[in-house]
C-alpha cells in the first residue's frame, strides 16, 4: 500500500455515518474510496454541490457537473446544487462536519499553511481559508515530511498561513497526532515506527498518549466506484 493510500485509509476511519464532508485536492480526495462498511458520508463540493458521486465513465462527462478540483463528477440520488454564495454560507456557517485538507506546514497550535510559497507563484487560497475557519473538525492529511525530509509539523509556521489554530487532527504516513490546548499529542504510530522516530522528523515536542496505538488499516477486497 503506498503512503497516500495508507493516509487516506486512516483518515477514512475518522468519518462517522451521516457526516457532511468537504475534501481538499490530493490525498483527501482518496478518502471516500476507503470508508469503513456502514459509514455513509455526504461529500460537499464548494463550487455548489452536496452529494458528489463517483467519477464518470469515460465519455460520459457532463461539462456542467464538476467538483471543486474542476474534475468531472456525477450526481447520486439525494444530490443537490446551489450557488457559490450558498455553498460558502454552508461552509462558513459551521454546517460541515469535517474537512480534510493537505498542508505545507502545521504548527503545534494547529495553525495551518497550505496555500502559498513566497518567491514562487501564489496560486491562491481558493476555499481553504473559509473551510478552516468554518468547519467543525479539520483533519490534516499529508506526508509527514517534505520531499527533502524537512519536518512539515513545525513549532511555528513560516509560510503564509491559511488559518490560526484551526487543525484538530494530523494524519500522516507515520503518525496520528491530535492538536490539543497543551500541544501535540501522539495518538498512533504507523506499524514498525517508534515514537522516537516520529519525534525525530517533527519539530515541536510530542506528548505521547498513554494509550499509544499502532495505526491499523486493512485493505479491503471490495471494489468500489472511484470517488472524489
Amino acid at each position, binding site marked *: 500500500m503506498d503512503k497516500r493510500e495508507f493516509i487516506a485509509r486512516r483518515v477514512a476511519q475518522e468519518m462517522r455515518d451521516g457526516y457532511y464532508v468537504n475534501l481538499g485536492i490530493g490525498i483527501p480526495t482518496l478518502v471516500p474510496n476507503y470508508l469503513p462498511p456502514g459509514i455513509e458520508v455526504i461529500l460537499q*463540493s*464548494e*463550487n*455548489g*454541490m452536496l452529494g458528489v458521486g*463517483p*467519477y*464518470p*465513465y*469515460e465519455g460520459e*462527462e*457532463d*461539462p*456542467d*457537473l*464538476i*467538483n471543486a*478540483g*474542476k*474534475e*468531472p*463528477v456525477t*450526481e447520486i440520488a439525494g444530490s443537490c*446544487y*446551489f*450557488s*457559490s*454564495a450558498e*455553498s*460558502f*454560507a454552508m*461552509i*462558513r456557517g459551521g454546517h460541515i462536519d469535517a474537512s480534510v485538507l493537505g498542508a505545507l506546514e502545521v504548527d503545534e497550535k494547529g*495553525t495551518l499553511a497550505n496555500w*502559498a510559497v513566497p518567491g514562487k*507563484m*501564489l*496560486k*491562491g*487560497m*481558493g*476555499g*481553504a*481559508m*473559509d473551510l478552516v*475557519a*468554518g468547519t467543525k473538525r479539520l483533519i490534516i492529511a499529508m506526508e509527514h515530511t517534505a520531499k527533502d525530509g524537512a519536518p512539515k509539523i513545525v513549532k511555528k509556521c513560516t509560510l*503564509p*498561513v*491559511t*488559518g*490560526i489554530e484551526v487543525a484538530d487532527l494530523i494524519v500522516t504516513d507515520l503518525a496520528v497526532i491530535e492538536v490539543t490546548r497543551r500541544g501535540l499529542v501522539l495518538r498512533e504510530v504507523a506499524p514498525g515506527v517508534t515514537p522516537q522516530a516520529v519525534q525525530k522528523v517533527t519539530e515541536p515536542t510530542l506528548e505521547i498518549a498513554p494509550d499509544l496505538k499502532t495505526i491499523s488499516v486493512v485493505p479491503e477486497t471490495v471494489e468500489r*466506484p*472511484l470517488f*472524489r
Partner: protein
Amino acid sequence: MDKRVRNAEAVIGRIQDGATILAGGFGVCGVPENLINALIRQGAKNLTIVSNNPGIDGFGIGALIENRQVRKMIASYLGNNRFFEKLALAGEIEMELNPQGTLAERMRAAGAGIPAFFTPTGYGTMAGEGREVREFGGRPHILVPALRGDFAFVKAWKGDRWGNLVYRKTARNFNAVMATAADYVIAEVEQIVELGGLDPDSVHTPGIFVDAIFEGTGYLKPTEPGPKRKR
C-alpha cells in the same frame, strides 16, 4: 416587458475602458462564453475582472487576459493559467486574492445592501491584512467590505424575456450571486423559453436582477481532465 436582445454585440458597446466586470464561471464550467468573446472583439481595456479564477489559457477570462484587456484581477485561485502567471510575475497585471467564500459573500452583501460584514475567515492571514479586527464570542473577526461591479456577465441554462434564470448543476456557481451585484447585468442562456415556461418555484435568479438576456450560440463547454470510472 421584454429584456431580450439579439446577441452579445447588442449590449457589449456599453462597456467602457476601466469598467469592473463580474464574470460567472468556475474553471471552465458555467462560463459566459459569448459575452467574453464579444468583449474580446470589442476591445475595452484596463478592465477589472472579478471571477473566481482566470480559467485556462485561451478560454474564457484566460483569453481576455491574453488579449491584454485586464488591468486587475480579483479572484480566489489563479492556478492553471500560465500566461496570467507570467504577467503577474512581471507586474503587468494587478491581482487581489480573496478567500473564495469571502469573494462570494462580498458580492452577496453588495446585492443585499450590506456595505460590510464581519467574518473569521482570513483573520491572521494575508487576506486579513489591513482589515479592522473585532472579537465576537471570544474569536477574532475581520471587517470585509461589499464588492460591486459595473457589469455582470452571467451564464444560465434557461431564461425568459423577463430575465428569470435557471442554472444547470454546478454551472450555477458564482453566476447567481454575481447577477445580484452589478449595475448592469447581462445574461446569456442556452435557451430562451416562453414567459411561464419556467417553474415559478424553481427560478434561481428572479428577473429583477437581470437587465438584458440573449440566447448564446456556439458554446464550447469544455471539460478539464480528471479520473474516470472503469466499466
